[in-house]
């Protein structure tokens, strides 16, 4: 496959959003690819729309960044006019309107998640085309293909926060193991009544699956260490 550095920058991705008893947990991998080259191995695909609503982005990086910027701007105005924090439903619908009305020109599949005082934790899925669908959990991106069966088996209602977080991290690492366009680290964002918590799971903290190799010290690490390890026979 030829290296096309002028290919549109896309987030071949795994994005996940789950509700639990008290809020939502959003998770994503961190790989942004340009054709076959990884343009950014530590990108942040979970973007803030308001204090209490975040969005997971997949598809074209440029399209989803622009949509997030517009929706953040509209929500900011809306919050000022309303006099209280915007609801997750309003945020999701603003995303949906932009996505649907420009469906011919955009390539964006997003998951909007957040918490508000009326409905608690909510997850809204807005895939390519601009449908809006409220779901107890949602997956998206190229890596999601490998997670449908997993979630059918592992999902249950009314999880605790720890259970939800572990589920998201496990699912993301499974998808990253099988999908070439997903990889890097796992980032999660928890949104509940108390506020927002960001977590980071580096490559070495993620579990290894079938046939995945243990990370080994590269020769470079050994070369750059001040005292070289003695040769062993």
């Amino acid at each position, binding site marked *: 496959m030829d290296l096309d*550095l*002028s290919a549109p920058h896309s987030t071949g991705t795994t994005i996940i959003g789950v509700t639990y008893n008290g809020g939502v947990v959003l998770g994503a991998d961190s790989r942004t690819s340009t054709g076959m080259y990884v343009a950014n191995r530590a990108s942040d695909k979970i973007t803030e729309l308001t204090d209490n609503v975040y969005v997971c982005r997949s598809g074209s*990086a440029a399209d989803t960044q622009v949509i997030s910027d517009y929706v953040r701007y509209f929500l900011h105005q809306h919050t000022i006019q309303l006099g209280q924090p915007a609801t997750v439903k309003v945020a999701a619908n603003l995303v949906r309107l932009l996505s649907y009305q420009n469906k011919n020109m955009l390539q964006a599949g997003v998951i909007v998640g957040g918490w508000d005082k009326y409905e608690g934790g909510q997850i809204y899925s807005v895939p390519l085309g601009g449908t809006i669908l409220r779901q107890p959990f949602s997956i998206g991106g190229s890596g999601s293909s490998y997670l449908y069966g997993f979630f059918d088996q592992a999902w249950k209602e009314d999880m605790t926060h720890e259970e939800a977080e572990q589920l998201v991290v496990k699912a993301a690492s499974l998808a990253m193991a099988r999908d070439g366009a997903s990889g890097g680290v796992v980032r999660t964002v928890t949104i509940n009544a108390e506020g927002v918590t960001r977590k980071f799971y580096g490559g070495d903290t993620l579990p290894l699956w079938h046939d995945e190799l243990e990370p080994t010290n590269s020769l470079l690490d050994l070369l750059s260490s001040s005292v070289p390890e003695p040769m062993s026979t």
Partner: protein
Amino acid sequence: MVKMTDLPTKGGFSFDLCTRNQMLLDKGVQMPPFRKTGTTIVGLVFQDGVVLGADTRATEGPIVADKNCEKIHFMAPNIYCCGAGTAADTEAVTDMVSSQLQLHRYATGRESRVVTALTLLKSHLFSYQGHVSAALVLGGVDVTGPHLQTVYPHGSTDTLPFATMGSGSLAAMSVFESKYREGLTREEGIELVAEAICAGIFNDLGSGSNVDVCVITKGQTEYLRNYQLPNPRTYISSKGYSFVKGQTVFLEQLLLLVSKLVHVEAIFQLRVDEWQYRINWGLVPCLC
């Protein structure tokens, strides 16, 4: 794909797929096009600010159009931008945003911020849907601290501690990935950037010539044009060039012109002398 054999690899070109490629060409399947952006540009964040680097080769297809062009563009006194892609596009978009930033500085009375430049660039590039082929590494230090961002032709941006763009980006990124660490000093940062650009210069056909470096810290920017010149001309004769007389044939008509010149000169000289004579003898009045 090719069946794996047990022969030890000998190196050199493997001709296994040539028959298949020929068959595909005969069927009408075209080879994928090979389009280079012909550049290596890099940036990294060190403890006091950012260091930007670029090579200096501008290509027109297979020809080197400019051996020493400037790819690090001025955006604001505290913000510089390296550009890869179509030279006209990078030049035009950075000039345009630089002017917009200046107008913004006049309106607000404050030093420009990197996010302002970033937003102006990304909204322009997005509205042209990737047809403005400018891939940029934007770096600067403002009141909120040091920033380094990459901007892609379609309008997406990434914030990174170290970044490379252009056809030589893979060679430069390999240097950064092995040697970058947080909290580099200024000297270490410059050295690492120069090394990454050299990796692009020597291993990428679209990059070459010299290394330009730009160091931006709080309150001070240093543009080190031609920081390294690792490709000097090596075939200049130390004695200089000398040509035997009569080696170049020139037209006979030229000789006529020479004689005409002499003629005119003589007249002019006479006139000047006449004037001098008249001035000396007070025959020409002075005018204020």
